[in-house]
C-alpha cells in the first residue's frame, strides 16, 4: 500500500541533514577532546611536587628519603633529581655546555600526587617525612602553573560552549529541513483535510516520514564524522589526542541520528499542523 505521504523527493534535504549532522558530531567531538586535553594538562600541572631534603646530609640520605617519600599516602612517581637530570633540564635555558659536574648537589626529589590533594598537603607530606627522620621542605605547583591551569580550563569551557552551539545549530537544520520537506508536499494536506483526516493523522504521517529521513541522514552524518575523526586522529599532530578518547565519547555519534530524527520529526509536525490549520480550520 502506498504511504499517505510520498517518500521520494527529499534527496536534497537528506544530504543537508546528513552534512549538518556530521558537522554537529565533529563539533562535539572536537570540544570533548579540547576539554579532555585541558583536563589532562591540568592534572599533570596540579600534581607536580618537589621535596628538598635538608637533613640528614649523608650520602645515602637522598635514596632513603625517596623510599620514605614513596611510602607516604597519596604519593606516586617519586624521582630523585640527579645531576644528570638537572643538567638536562637546565640545558633548555643555559645552553648545551652545562655539565652535571658543574652543578651543586641539589638534594631534590620530584613526585606527584595520585589524587587531587588538599590545599595543605605539602605540610602533611613534610610532617610525615619528619616522622621518618628527614627534615624536608615540600613545594607544590607554583602560581604560574595554577594560572596556566585556570587559562586552559577557560579555553576548554569556550571550546565546549562553541561545540554545543554548533551542535545545536547543526541539528536545528534538521528541524528546518523537516519543515521544508512538509512545505514541498503541502498541496497534499488540503485534500486530506477535506476527506476528514484529523490533524493528528496528518501530522503523524509527515512527522514519521521526517523522523525516518532525519534518522537515516543522521546515521550517515555520524558515520561520516567517525571516518573523518579516525582520519584526523591518525595525523601526526593529533595522534596523542586519540589516546585520550574514551568509550563515552561515542555518545555524540550515537546521539546525532536520534536528535536529528527527533528534530526533523518535530519540525515536520509543527509545519504540517500549520498547513493543516490553513487547509481545514474554518475562518
Amino acid at each position, binding site marked *: 500500500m*502506498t504511504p*499517505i505521504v510520498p517518500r521520494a523527493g527529499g534527496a536534497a534535504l537528506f544530504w543537508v541533514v546528513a552534512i549538518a549532522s556530521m558537522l554537529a558530531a565533529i563539533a562535539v567531538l572536537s570540544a570533548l577532546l579540547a576539554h579532555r586535553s585541558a583536563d589532562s594538562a591540568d592534572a599533570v600541572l596540579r600534581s607536580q611536587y618537589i621535596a628538598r631534603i635538608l637533613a640528614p646530609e649523608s650520602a645515602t640520605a637522598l635514596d632513603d628519603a625517596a623510599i620514605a617519600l614513596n611510602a607516604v599516602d597519596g604519593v606516586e612517581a617519586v624521582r630523585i633529581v640527579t645531576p644528570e637530570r638537572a643538567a638536562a633540564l637546565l640545558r633548555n635555558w643555559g645552553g648545551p655546555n652545562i655539565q652535571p659536574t658543574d652543578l651543586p648537589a641539589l638534594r631534590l626529589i620530584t613526585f606527584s600526587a595520585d589524587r587531587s590533594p588538599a590545599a595543605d598537603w605539602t605540610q602533611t607530606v613534610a610532617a610525615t617525612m619528619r616522622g621518618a627522620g628527614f627534615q624536608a621542605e615540600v613545594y607544590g605547583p607554583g602560581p604560574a602553573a595554577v594560572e596556566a591551569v585556570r587559562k586552559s580550563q577557560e579555553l576548554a569551557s569556550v571550546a565546549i560552549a562553541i561545540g554545543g552551539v554548533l551542535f545545536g545549530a547543526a541539528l536545528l537544520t534538521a528541524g528546518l529541513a523537516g519543515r521544508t520537506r512538509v512545505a514541498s508536499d503541502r498541496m497534499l494536506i488540503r485534500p486530506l483535510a477535506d476527506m476528514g483526516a*484529523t490533524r493528528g493523522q496528518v501530522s503523524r504521517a509527515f512527522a514519521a516520514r521526517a523522523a525516518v529521513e532525519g534518522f537515516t541522514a543522521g546515521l550517515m552524518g555520524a558515520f561520516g564524522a567517525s571516518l573523518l575523526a579516525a582520519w584526523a586522529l591518525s595525523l601526526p599532530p593529533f595522534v596523542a589526542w586519540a589516546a585520550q578518547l574514551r568509550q563515552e565519547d561515542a555518545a555524540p555519534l550515537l546521539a546525532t541520528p536520534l536528535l536529528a530524527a527527533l528534530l526533523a520529526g518535530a519540525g515536520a509536525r509543527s509545519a504540517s499542523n500549520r498547513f493543516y490549520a490553513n487547509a481545514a480550520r*474554518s475562518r
Partner: protein
Amino acid sequence: MISADAIFDRDTDSAVPAVRLRGVKAGYRKRHDVLRNLDFEAYPGAIAVISGPPGAGKTALIDVLRLFLNPTEGTAEVLGVNVSKLSGTARAKLKRDIGFMSESPVLADHMDAFDNVSLPLRLAGAKANAYAGDVEDLLKFLGVPERDGRIASALTGSEKRRAALARAVVGRPRLILAEEPTAGLSQEIAGRMLRLLASMRRAGTTIIVTTQDENLAEQLGAQLWRMRDGRIAPVIAETAA
C-alpha cells in the same frame, strides 16, 4: 457492466434537512461579504444544482458546506450539526460524511488511481480487503484504469476528474458537494458521472452541484437555484398556461 445503483444502497431519513442555512453571512479575509443573509436548505435524497455568474458566491457557499468557512452571522447546519462551534476533531469526523469534488481537484501525485480513491476509507480506518472490491467497481464504472501502474501525475485531466469524483463518493457520504462535475468531460463520461450522482441520490445522499451549465439540473432531475451577489433563490419552473 456494473450499474451505478449496484454500488450504492442505503435507507435514509428524509425528515431532517441535510443542509440548512439561515441568514448566513460569510466571506474571506480580503472580501468579508461574499454570502449575504443567505437562506438555503436541502433534504436527504435531494439534488440541488446551483448556478450563477463568477463571483456570485457559489464557491463560498460550498466552502461553508464543506466546513472550510464559518459563517460570520446566521446559522449553518450540516447533516444536523451546527458547524459554527465544532472542535477540530468533530469537524474532521463530520467531513468524513461529506464528499467534496473541487473544480480543480488535487490528487496525491505519488499514488495511483486506486490508492487515491481509497484514501478516505484508509483515513477512516477501513481495511484494504474490505474496500478493494468497491473501489475497483467504482473506477471501472467511471472508466478509470485502477491498476495500470500510472501514478496520479501521469493521469489525463479527464481521468483525474473521474478519480476525484470516485474519491468523493467512495465513502458513501451523506452529502456530496461537486463543483462543475462535468466540465471538460466527454458526453459519455459526463453521462456516467451524472448516473453515478443520480444513483447516490436514490440511496439517500444529498447532492449539491455548483455549475454555470443550468442544463445539469434538467439532466439530474434536480431543483435549480440561482446565486447572485451572495444571495440564492430557487428557480420556479415555468408551467404551460
